[in-house]
């Protein structure tokens, strides 16, 4: 083979250049921690990484939805617990008031306590969450659902709010004033087959106690209604608890899924540092060798040896 000046220089430059490119590439892989810098580096992996990233983002969105709905439900649960406690206390008062050997004045004391508890229930019914939304206002989240003057003047809204917790799957997360207190626009003292709202029941109980109505009315009407309210409150609390649990489980599932997806994403596009360092050493050695060989071989010329 005939070797010309050009041949040697071209070879040396091409090989040193190629070695340099390899060192530069692996260095970039290590410093950025990613081995795909552009789609064209590896279209298949890039597409896979993009799909994984999208899935991660979507899961993150659902997880955040769950957090927000969860906050609201926790607030609701707390409020329902307070309401339940108040109703249980009222039930005890009603039982006391039904006892035949009570003075009218004692009954009026009980009635006052019932009125106090009614006010407490109204205040709890106006609870807001951290975002300033009335928990039991339905869709009218910015309007007090139970105004102090007259609860029937509230919006009395039965609108439900829902949140998307998985693709195409929404969950209602608010409990409406309707469900908790009953229809506020129903007659305060209802026909016996029509369940009145909580405030109607309490007003009726107070009026029974104040008006010296006979004990049977209290036991028959009020106690039965209070029991019905407590039952429906319990049912609501169970439902709210079940929803919180469902959200928790879904959240755990998303967290697990994202952990897996994250691992897959790392596998797809992250640099394997150990492997890359090894390759860096290898390439560096080759680069060093090619430079050193070039420096020794290229300057050789017959000219240097002619006298």
């Amino acid at each position, binding site marked *: 083979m*005939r070797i*010309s000046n*050009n041949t040697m220089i071209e070879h040396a430059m091409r090989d040193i250049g190629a070695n340099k490119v390899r060192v530069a590439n692996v260095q970039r892989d290590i410093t950025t921690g990613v081995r795909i810098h552009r789609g064209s580096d590896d279209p298949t992996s890039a597409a896979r990484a993009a799909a994984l990233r999208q899935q991660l983002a*979507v899961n993150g*969105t659902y997880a*955040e939805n769950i957090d927000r709905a969860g906050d609201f439900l926790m607030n609701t649960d707390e409020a329902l617990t307070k309401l339940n406690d108040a109703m249980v206390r009222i039930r005890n008062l009603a039982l006391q008031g039904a006892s035949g050997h009570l003075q009218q004045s004692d009954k009026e004391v009980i009635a006052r306590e019932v009125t106090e508890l009614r006010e407490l229930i109204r205040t709890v019914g106006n609870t807001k969450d951290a975002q300033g939304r009335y928990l039991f206002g339905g*869709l009218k989240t910015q309007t007090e659902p139970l105004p102090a003057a007259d609860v029937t003047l509230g919006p009395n*809204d039965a609108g439900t709010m829902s949140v*998307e917790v998985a693709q195409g799957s929404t969950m209602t997360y608010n409990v409406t004033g309707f469900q908790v207190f009953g229809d506020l626009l129903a007659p305060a003292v209802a026909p016996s087959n029509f369940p009145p709202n909580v405030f109607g029941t309490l007003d009726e109980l107070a009026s029974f106690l104040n008006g010296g109505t006979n004990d049977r009315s209290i036991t028959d009407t009020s106690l039965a209604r209070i029991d019905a309210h407590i039952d429906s409150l319990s049912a609501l609390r169970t439902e709210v608890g079940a929803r919180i649990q469902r959200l928790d489980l879904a959240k755990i599932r998303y967290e697990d899924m994202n952990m897996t997806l994250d691992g897959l994403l790392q596998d797809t596009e992250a640099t394997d540092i150990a492997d890359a360092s090894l390759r860096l050493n290898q390439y560096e050695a080759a680069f060093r060798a090619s430079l050193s060989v070039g420096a020794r071989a290229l300057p050789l010329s017959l000219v240097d040896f002619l006298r």
Partner: protein
Amino acid sequence: MNVGLYASVRGLLAAQRAVDVASHNIANADTEGYSRQRAEQSAGTPMGYSPYGQVGTGVQIDAIRRIRDGLLDRQVRQESSPLGESMARAEAIGQIEDLLGEPGAGALSTKLAEYYDGWNKLATNPENYNLRIALRDTATELTTTFNRLYSDLQGLRQDLNDRIDTQIADINSKASQIADLNYQIGATIAAGQNPNDLKDQQDLLIEQLSMMVKLQAVEEGTSGMTNVYVAGDPLVMRTDAFGLNLAPINPLVDQSVINYSPTGLPAVITGGSLKGMLDIRNNVLAVLAPPAGEAGGLVFQLNSLAAQLIADTNALHTQGFGLDGTTTLNFFNGTDAGDIVVNQSITNLANGLDFIAAAANDPGTLAGGPGDNGMAQLIAQRRDALTMGGFAPAPPALAVPPNATFENFWKQELTNLAVLGQAANRSVTTQETVLASVKDRRDQISAVSTDEEMANVIRYQKAYAASAKLISTIDEMLDTLMNIRR
């Protein structure tokens, strides 16, 4: 003895000439396109008819010839145009990928995802102004990303146009240089000389030309001139250069075609960097709708994505209600990626945030309320809807329903581009290796080795010294002869 003196002088002259050629070679050791030359020498014509037969008359230089293999030249030209094409493609696609910036915080995929995430977050708390601000801002970022990509890609097309323009000027200038060289080569050959250096220059020009455009170069047997053809039509014919020119066809899309200057007929560019750039400009970055059944260019697809997104969001948004009961309001204005913008009423007016229609029902009515997230939820769910990719071909073929979400549609575009880029990059690597090995073989034959030349110089030096010594010996002999009479 006279013959010996004569032969020695010729030996001196031949050695001098050979050293001249070696000097020329060494001087041009690094000249691009230069091929080494050799002084070809042969024994001089003998003097005939002496009683003892023919007597030699020394050495003569027949010709100074360049050492070159025409087959390798053809191979170099053949391998140059695919390399030129893939290099142009790889460079342009690299630029496009840099502009798109995927994956990254400022990339369109990210902004699309954030946009729908904005609706989704608003759906969890539609009366919250912070979330409304967040949605307005992510939507604005999405539209500015569309606008930026559109103008950047159009800028790249403009840039490609300029480069095509420059390249055509370059091709024309090289063609006329080749034609000029043809004239000089023809004259030199007619005078019975070897136009070695002129041919080297011409070969280099043709080689550079073949990087830009695929061509055939045919050397005429007797005149020594080389004719250059592009797709069968002449670019250089003997001493005439026919250039290419650009003819604008559609100023709207900065498109232009390439014609042969003399005929005005379109030139078919089948290879070289010119082909690569034309292909990127006309196909990869196409703005206009593709013919039925073909994939659209990136700018066209970007525009379809923007147009569909505008229509899709607005279709729902106009049915929704703002916090203040505003309805039938478009969320996006504009028609394509170039002018998509969030409705200025939402972004500019003091109460603009109220106009974002998150509610499905009028909040003033019994069915509605500030907590109503119906429309926000519907819009957020469009993220998963199949909205893109379908088309309606002419009957009787069945229309293809949309088969991709917004995000997947864009991801497919990115993958298509990435595959093109990968193919171009691979092709560059392959072609570089092929071309390097062909050039290597050519260098082995044609390139100068200074060691070899120096060795030759020593050889000729020895020959020169020997011839000179011979002259002085003959001189002495003549001296001896002259002194006999004293």
